[in-house]
């Protein structure tokens, strides 16, 4: 008896929580959200790479020539990412997190 009661209670609780989103109308989303997030993550990673290269250079692991080449390439790639982000347009407040 306990068992059946517990089954029913849990089933109802789960159903309530899980079916909630289905009853609400579908939210309108920024279609570019995915792309923007991916670009943001790539931008952060690229900045880290630029800093890493600078540290390597200061530590003497990267020669001046190598550093100039690498740094230039990385910055160019970063600029590309920033350009793409700009192209996507300003973020909507609702989607910022």
């Amino acid at each position, binding site marked *: 008896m*306990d*068992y059946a*009661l*517990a*089954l029913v*209670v*849990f*089933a109802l*609780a*789960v159903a309530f*929580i*899980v*079916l*909630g*989103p*289905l009853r*609400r109308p*579908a*939210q309108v*989303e920024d279609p570019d*959200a*995915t792309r923007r*997030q*991916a670009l943001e*993550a*790539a*931008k*952060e*990673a690229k*900045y880290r*790479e*630029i*800093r*890493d290269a600078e*540290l*390597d250079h*200061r*530590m*003497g*692991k*990267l*020669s001046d020539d*190598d550093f100039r080449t*690498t740094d230039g390439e990385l*910055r160019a790639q*970063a*600029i590309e990412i*920033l*350009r793409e982000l700009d192209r996507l347009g300003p973020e909507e407040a609702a*989607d910022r*997190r």
Partner: protein
Amino acid sequence: MTGAVGSACLVIGLLTAIYATIAAVVGAVTGRRELVTSARRAVYCLAGLLTIAMVMLESAYLRSDFSYKLVAQNSSTDTPTFYKFTAMWSSQEGSLLLWVFLLSVYSSVVLLLTRRRLREIVPWATAVLGAVATFFLSLMVIFGQEPFARLASPPAQGNGLEPLLRHPAMMIHPPMLYSGYVGFSIPFAFAIGALIVRRTDADWIRSTRRFALIAWTFLGTGILLGALWSYSELGWGGYWGWDAVENAALIPWLLGTAFLHSVMVQEKRGMLKRWNASLIVATFTAALLGTFLVRSGVLSSIHAFGASTLGVPFLVFIGVVVCASVALIVSRLDSLRSEARLDSLLSREAFFLLNNLVLIALAVVIFWGTFFPIISEAVTGTKESVGPPFFDRVTVPLALVLVGLSGIGPLLTWRRVTAGTLRRGFLLPLAVAGVTLTVLLVFSDASRSLPSLAMFTLIAFVLAVVTQEVARGTSARRMIAGESWPGAFASLVTRNRRRYGGYLVHAGISVLFLGVAASSAFHTQRDVRLMPGQSTKVGAYTVTYRRPTGGIRNDRAGTGAPISLGAVLDFRKGNQHWTMRPSRNYYAATDGSGGAIGRFFSGESLSEIDVRWGLTRDVWTAITQPNLSKLSGPIRIANAKFGNAPAAQGLIVAALVARYVNYPVPIGFRMIVSPMIAWIWIGGAVVMLGALTALWPSPEARRRRATSLASARLGRELSRA
């Protein structure tokens, strides 16, 4: 009531997991985001349900409710409370519940953190995690591994927790191991998702990197805890026996280590995509295999140690995982093409690849040796097995190469390394290694063991590299920011957590290998039988057996043993002098053997090791050959006279223990002096510290500041261009 609620949680949990899987797939295919949200909430519900189930089961244990089969089999009223709590996962069914509980919690966390990101991948990842949870839950609900099974006639007293498991390390070991296994399912699920939607750039790696690292840390800690338990609890004095269950946990850890390195190559240069996809599948499969091996009896099948009913479902599940993953990778080969090529063999990418190859080779040889009974039977028809000598022989060379690589890696840069960099980087560490080698050759007898000598030299090299990198980095920061030495060091590490955390891990691994090499090659062991008053020599120590000891309910380790019979040993070397007290704990027999009094002496009897820890050496002692022969007569008399007087039994047992102390007999001891063995555990702690450093999130503010600075700089260039 407890059982009813618990079982209901499991049944509803299974349905919830199935729903989560289906809703996520439908949501992914149709693009209906509300279904994906619903699936995510289902995972949260699953975590909640399983938490309730765990609480229910624990409450049954803590109440010593023997109407539950598991509690009756694994606990007793005289099991100490800590072990009552941890006994929950010492059984097959309980450990399955723990596994899927951890899976649901970790899945909930990762889905919470990625709910607004990776929108194409997350639905499929949710489905994969839901499917894995479904499998484990079905083992409990459908395949009969019911944690809340009840007994028709509950016994008055339970069996008690298996005495060998009454050790703190052994009880934390399963949650650590399972956190490791479960942890690897997260990057696996995201990899599958990324493959399905063909978004195979580094995004899925970046989002799951921390989970992979956390899983790796837990798994490694679990393995070390198992080794620590073996050393401080079992009577043989070793920490690693190349046993099938030890290897089963080591293999996924090795593959996970390879994965952590090769994903860096994909992040930096877009290479090794196929490699990483295959590697995470292999790691997760190995984790499943590890979970399966310990409980299936399949490997011990040459010895056929009671195979359980779980073997077939597990194998089928693993087969499905492997086949589906391989099919998926093959069908997506085109989107897994590398974005760049290996420019030079002298580059960080090349060495990471080399490191991967060595780690995979290690995993393969250990796998080969572990499964050799099955392999040999397939090939020659007779079951043959290989032992520690084989494993030592094949793994030592690979381990040496691995340690060497861990020192070279940090000295290299991406793309290619110039001769100047090489010279500047290698000069000092090579010099340190050379000096170390010379000193060892001249001033010690380390050349007795050439592999150890090589390992010590390589360790010196690695530690020199790490020190050099830290020193140079700190001085570079001082140049940039003008900080003091300590300040520069702190800001260096906090701004480059991944790099310096990684270096710390390498240093820790080296220290660990230092302990392994020194203690394996240079330990002294004596097995000897002594009467009180007799002495012997172990290494440089003179050991005298002073007298036997006996106690009732006062075992030092707090395991709840009724009787402890031990010995007092005096150790002397020059001016040093100390006492050691190994003993044996006796637990009452639960099968009725031995008689009313004798059962206290004829149940499980376990060694309680005494270890004197030290930075330069450990001294380990155990009673390996106890001798109760003089008691067998008195026990027979006691059984006959006092078998029906339960009130007097305590007194009689105490009298027998006193008799043991007063009429000593020769006892067999084992004594081991192991140089530097404590450094294994110290090295492990350093590895954990390094992993923690690499995991620690950079503060948001600092990142945003750096972002705005960098983007301002770039913006200036943009306008100039």
